[in-house]
């Protein structure tokens, strides 16, 4: 294994300006494949969801999935693209065993959507506009299993086994224009773009866009140019970077690698790179020389697609509220800052908070619990908020109990702890753990009397006007009631009994 030289990130950015291009493939959530009626359900027996068309059997022909087209147009519209008035599919010709026809049915110079943009929010709430070159339709390949090699990798395998269930599943490929001017924030922009795109795809309900399942895959193209130069440098293409964090790391790594190569007087080779999750590095793949010739030509087996303008407008009118617009609206409704909104987004808590509010909780309370206690639990367990095991309805119930005075914050935390531990719903936990604010004035008064008697010196100080000393008596009362008292009420009672104005 050769060691790759890396320049420090800061030094790299002090000399060079990164230019990125991001290519994202999204598998659509259609019921059937792009060009045949085979099911797309995951997890089926190998080769059980295939037919003459997606196996590329002699004589078979493709027919376009209407929802595939509709989804592509929706994505295009949501990305502020123009929608082609007339476009064709093309054949991209190259041999590979996972591709049954040895050409991919794709789009070439006539994409269905082009010339758009996506505004993405960075960590600090600043907005960066990523220009979209095109979004086009194509089909996925089959899956190969490499047998006989050490690690299931292609190298060293004795043979491979092919399952074509995935072959022909519709893909939308979304390609950005070169992303310039992000400077040191380029990796962050890359991550934020993919995150925003994922939110958008989910909001459109055209795919679940689960990156860990390969439903959304990103290629990161990156080049460096010295500050002040306009021409782009040679780019590397890091393939199949399949998590948000990896997108950021891959971009960062390539910036440092390119800078080291350039600084040592070397040249960047135009090649594909493989990203490694383990250490965030990339290694060289295939060199992209010009021998590669896909011989694109219009697909004669499919007729052109000419989406009627009325249909396009109908689809536009039917678009759901897009994530960014929704976030802006919620930000105003909840009265929070850009930065706070960004934290909510990063935590994946928007839908949960919204649902909690829908269950009757005040916005600030809903946000407080999800972003506080529950976010902490999420960090500790490594589970997503949504998978913690507490529902928005339960959080709303906790906030209701606090509002009516049955719980104070400290008790509410214990209730949530119980819910997370699987002890049941909030009311059940309150019941089982006996967590209830002592609201019986008589019992509370007795506890105050007991505390005063036990702390006569402190009581004197308070009588003498030192109100700050009240804290010690309140603490003593809370201790006596095992925390189940409303601290505010205890303070009132202490001052009242000592004859002091609060």
């Amino acid at each position, binding site marked *: 294994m050769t060691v790759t030289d890396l320049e420090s990130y800061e030094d790299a950015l002090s000399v060079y300006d990164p230019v990125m291009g991001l290519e994202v493939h999204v598998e659509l959530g259609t019921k059937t494949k792009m060009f045949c009626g085979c099911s797309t359900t995951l997890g089926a027996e190998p080769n059980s969801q295939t037919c*003459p068309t997606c*196996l*590329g*059997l*002699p*004589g*078979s*022909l*493709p*027919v*376009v999935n209407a929802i595939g087209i509709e989804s592509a147009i929706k994505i295009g519209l949501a990305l502020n693209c123009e929608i082609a008035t007339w476009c064709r599919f093309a*054949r991209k*010709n190259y*041999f590979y*065993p996972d591709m*049954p*026809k*040895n*050409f991919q049915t794709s789009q070439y110079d006539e994409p269905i959507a082009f010339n758009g943009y996506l505004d993405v929010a960075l960590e600090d709430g600043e907005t960066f506009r990523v220009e979209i070159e095109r979004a086009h339709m194509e089909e996925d390949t089959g899956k190969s299993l490499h047998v006989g090699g050490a690690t299931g990798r292609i190298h060293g395998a*004795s043979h*491979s086994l*092919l399952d074509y269930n995935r072959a022909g599943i519709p893909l939308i490929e979304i390609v950005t224009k070169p992303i310039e001017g992000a400077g040191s924030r380029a990796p962050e922009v890359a991550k934020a773009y993919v995150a925003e795109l994922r939110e958008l795809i989910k909001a459109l309900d055209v795919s679940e866009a689960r990156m860990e399942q390969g439903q959304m895959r990103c290629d990161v193209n990156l080049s460096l140019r010295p500050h002040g130069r306009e021409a782009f440098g040679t780019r590397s293409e890091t393939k199949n970077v399949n998590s948000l964090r990896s997108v950021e790391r891959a971009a960062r790594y390539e910036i440092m690698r390119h800078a080291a190569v350039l600084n040592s007087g070397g040249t960047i080779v135009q090649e594909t790179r493989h990203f490694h999750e383990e250490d965030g590095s990339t290694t060289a793949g295939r060199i992209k020389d010009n021998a590669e*010739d896909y*011989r*694109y*030509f219009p697909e*004669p*087996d*499919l*007729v052109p697609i000419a989406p009627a303008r009325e249909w396009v407008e109908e689809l536009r009118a039917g678009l759901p509220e897009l994530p960014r617009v929704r976030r802006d609206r919620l930000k105003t409704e909840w009265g929070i800052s850009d930065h706070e909104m960004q934290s909510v987004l990063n935590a994946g808590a928007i839908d949960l908070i919204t649902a909690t509010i829908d269950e009757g909780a005040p916005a600030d309370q809903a946000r407080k619990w999800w972003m506080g206690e529950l976010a902490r639990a999420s960090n500790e367990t490594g589970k997503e908020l949504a998978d913690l095991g507490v529902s928005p309805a339960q959080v709303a119930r906790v906030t209701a109990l606090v509002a009516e005075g049955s719980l104070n914050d400290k008790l509410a935390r214990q209730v949530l702890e119980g819910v997370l531990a699987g002890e049941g719903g909030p009311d059940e936990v309150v019941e089982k753990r006996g967590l209830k604010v002592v609201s019986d004035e008589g019992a509370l008064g007795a506890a105050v009397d007991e505390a005063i008697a036990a702390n006569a010196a402190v009581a004197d100080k308070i009588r003498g006007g030192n109100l700050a000393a009240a804290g010690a008596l309140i603490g003593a009362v809370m201790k006596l009631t095992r925390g189940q008292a409303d601290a505010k009420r205890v303070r009132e009672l202490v001052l009242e009994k000592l004859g002091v104005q609060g």
Partner: protein
Amino acid sequence: MTDLTRLTAAETAAAIATGEASAVDVAQAHLDRIGAVDEKVHAFLHVDTEGALDAARAVDERRAKGEKLGPLAGVPLALKDIFTTKGIPTTVGSKILEGWIPPYDATVTKRLKDAGIVILGKTNMDEFAMGSSTENSAYGPTGNPWDLTRIPGGSGGGSSAALASYQAPLAIGTDTGGSIRQPAAVTGTVGVKPTYGGVSRYGMVAFSSSLDQGGPCARTVLDAALLHEAIAGYDPLDSTSIDAPVPSVVEAARNGNVQGMRIGVVKEFGGEGYQAGVMQRFNESVELLRELGAEIVEISCPSFKLALPAYYLIAPSEASSNLARFDAMRYGLRVGDDGTKSAEEVTALTREAGFGDEVKRRIILGTYALSSGYYDAYYGSAQKVRTLISRDFEAAFGTVDVLVSPTTPTTAFPIGERADDPMAMYLADLCTIPSNLAGNAAMSIPCGLAPEDGLPVGLQIIAPAMADDRLYRVGAAVEAALTGRWGHPLLEEAPAL
């Protein structure tokens, strides 16, 4: 007892419907004929004796139950080996698919079965339909029943030879540049290339997707029309299939008449390279049309001179892509897999061993024409020519109802004569190619024997897209007049085998 193999398809269907003959007897008579003569002709690559008899038996049973039978129920048919047949080998005339048994039926196959038509077997063809002589079959050439040392046309030579040697009254062909019409012309039979999109291509192994069209082959115009109706019509499995009613071709074939029609003679078809006897019979046909009441108009289609070059760029380009799937991974031949070679090497070795010369030549030519740097000059220009040819046709059909020409410049040439000269071979499709490029409908019917060699000459009739019925109206009128003049169908002059 009449020889059941000498009946037309219409007569056969009538005999079965009335109970004069059983479908099984008809099938058996044809199977016997195949047994007797096909060793000499080599029209079939695969004979499905059991399947044919089973299908015939099913027709007889339905008749016995009093069920209504379709117009061709029980009639035997020879199917070009380019259509997939579930459970029956489909080779496309190539070694690369030797032994392949498709798991599905082509739409045409399905419609034939649904119509109660009895499929006798699969017929010989130029490998992947690339050729005009059937000499490019990996399984050996087919002889022309008029002279077994001559070619039966191609690529559908097996189908045309089966008809001309009375091994089947019906056959199916495919026409990419003339592969239905040219074999019909040189064997004295009838062949129709329907409007592109008229007959489903689903399950028809692709040569050149934008040009390929399946169609009927028969010994009479009416039989071709009956078969046309059985196989044509919208198919949701083929995106290029026309979603409109099939033109009423049978009605047209029953009412042959050219009275008052305007018929165009294409000036560009003729002259150098055209055999004198072919031109003589063609000119007589034009005269006949005039006598039958048609108005004859000379038409010029200047772009047709570029049709052949455009075709030899478009068809190989599409073929180079269509044939990429034959890679030894999922079906068909696999060569060189000794455990040390890579998938890439095995694919290249298999394709080298499995494809014949003409197929390789066209794959290379097509790969070249599509290459970056050459695309605009070759493939791109060829597509512009295609536009110009369509415009020529449009202009012509603005003036006339149909066009006529010789189907081929010459009669059947001897086997082997043009085998080493691809350009000479390509000339056989000179008159048929424009219709493939434009997608319109065309037919070839026999119009006599060339005096110098006594071999059949074809008359080509071309109609606008979706006006296939005009072919049958004109074809039936000419056929009736000529058989009247000859006193018998032309095929009866063919020597006994």
